[in-house]
């Protein structure tokens, strides 16, 4: 769950407050419950609504809702897109690209984080600065040269090309997180391993690993989710339908490129895109929030 560093300061209903502030804290509790319930509705109902939509056939989704048919829910949309084949293919492509991006980003960022966090060499500061400064170059603005360059390197229409590109986009954040993780490792621990004759790689994989796994999890989670939801790069660098990732494939579904426009299929496809994000985030939330605080707040 979301990291919280201090014990609960607020009083609960069971522990009555001192008489003077009693009424005031009751008002506060009521306010909290009402506002909490309202905001829960605003943030959750649209997502539950989307889930329900994905279980309605196209003719119900595209008609004014009637009580008699609105809750006839079926798996037909999911069955339909499974048979059609384009979306399952796109889900597979998205998985390959997202897992590939997560692995590559984490490897590159861990190595670089180790180098920047624990070694001293000439140009270290400048090299780190260079990687961080690339955060300031929005990839949206270098799309045309990137396209021409990837094309010349035969990396357009290639899932590998997309992985290399996504890994680079996620690298500055990953390097930052990993450098922080390595900097927190006690000198003595690492030195002991090195003096005992462990090589650099051995030290990294056996002695340091447990200490840096949270940072690696943060990096991998970010990279996976970024690759899974990325749209503009995939749209630009992929032109072959059989290589489309899920978001690009959904554009085809939306525009009817796979035959008739079927909003039932579109909503089922969007729900499929949503599910891994929700599951990963809920399960690995503490790594996600730790990364946000490290990457964004401390700059």
């Amino acid at each position, binding site marked *: 769950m*979301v990291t919280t560093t201090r014990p609960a300061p607020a009083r609960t209903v069971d522990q009555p407050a001192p008489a003077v502030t009693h009424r005031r804290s009751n008002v506060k509790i009521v306010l909290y419950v009402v506002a909490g319930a309202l905001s829960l509705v605003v943030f959750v109902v649209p997502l539950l609504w989307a889930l329900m939509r994905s279980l309605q056939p196209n003719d119900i989704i595209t008609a004014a809702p009637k009580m008699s048919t609105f809750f006839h829910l079926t798996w037909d949309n999911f069955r339909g897109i499974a048979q059609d084949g384009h979306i399952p293919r796109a889900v597979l492509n998205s998985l390959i690209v997202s897992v590939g991006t997560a692995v590559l980003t984490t490897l590159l960022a861990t190595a670089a984080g180790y180098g920047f966090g624990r070694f001293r060499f000439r140009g270290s500061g400048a090299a780190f600065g260079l990687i961080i400064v690339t*955060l300031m170059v929005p990839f949206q603005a270098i799309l045309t040269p990137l396209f021409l360059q990837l094309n010349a390197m035969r990396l357009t229409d290639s899932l590998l090309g997309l992985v290399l590109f996504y890994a680079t986009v996620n690298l500055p954040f990953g390097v930052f997180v990993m450098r922080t993780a390595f900097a927190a490792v006690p000198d003595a621990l690492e030195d002991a391993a090195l003096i005992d004759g462990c090589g650099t790689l051995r030290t990294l994989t056996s002695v340091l690993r447990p200490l840096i796994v949270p940072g690696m999890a943060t990096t991998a989670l970010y990279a996976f989710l970024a690759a899974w939801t990325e749209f503009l790069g995939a749209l630009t660098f992929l032109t072959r339908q059989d290589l489309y990732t899920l978001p690009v494939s959904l554009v085809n579904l939306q525009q009817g490129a796979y035959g008739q426009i079927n909003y039932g299929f579109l*909503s089922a496809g969007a729900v499929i895109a949503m599910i891994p994000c929700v599951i990963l985030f809920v399960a690995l939330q503490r790594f996600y929030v730790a990364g946000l605080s490290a990457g964004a707040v401390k700059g």
Partner: protein
Amino acid sequence: MKTATITHPSRTGVALVSPALAFVAVFVLAPLVFAIYISLTNWPLIGSFHFIGLDNYAALGRDTAFWRAVLYTLIYTAIVTLPILVVGYLMAVLVRANRRGSTLLRTVFFLPYVIGLSTLSFLTVLEAQPDSGGFNVLLKALGLTDGSTAWLVNAPLATGLICVLVIWGVSGLTIVLLVAGMQGIPAELYESSEMDGASWWDKERRITIPMLRRTIAMSLILSVIGSFLAFTQFFILTQGGPGSSTTPIVLAIYQRAFVQLQVGSATAMSIVLIVVVGLISAAQFWLLRERD
């Protein structure tokens, strides 16, 4: 930082960081330099090209499509920035203390951000349809409209809808940043002002907001940069239309390069965008440096 030693030879350090540096050099720095060069040519996507100096930049001055996109991006940014901060702030206030349910609420507020604007935009497509879409059903049920509004083919309506989607979808980031900041404020500060009978708003104004000045500035900068680079929601929901009335700058660049095949001109637009976003990011770095 420690100096190079037997256990930490500098060549190992160099070897560890060079793969990451190579990626950045090939996929960020090379395209950046290449971009400057392309912007000085009349490069079509296919065919031969020649060097034309600053002509692309000069042409941008009287390029109405470019200026309309710039203006539209500024309007869009102006509409969404403050609501994202205000919604984010109020939600953060709601969940900053560890009360029953606050963890659940924090999780839920961040879900739309994690799901991402591409998926949310596809879901919005169906809910924006006349008669059948959720927005229309809701407005009709509230007695506000007859439920037949075609949101996506009217520029102001489509813009309004996209703004609502974005405010709802990205305020989660602001919430998390602000909650983290709020939890770092010592509780004693509030306790003493509660003794003086300060109201909720007094405490926010005198304690929270001044203490969170930098976090708030950060959230604002992140959200402004995000708005300047907006693409996905417009591409999916309106394709920039009707006409080019909902085309933000990144979509204009995309169309110039990959629909009109004028890569030189598109890249000149990109360079302008890089400079503007770079200046905003530089302000952010400067701001954060001050903290140390």
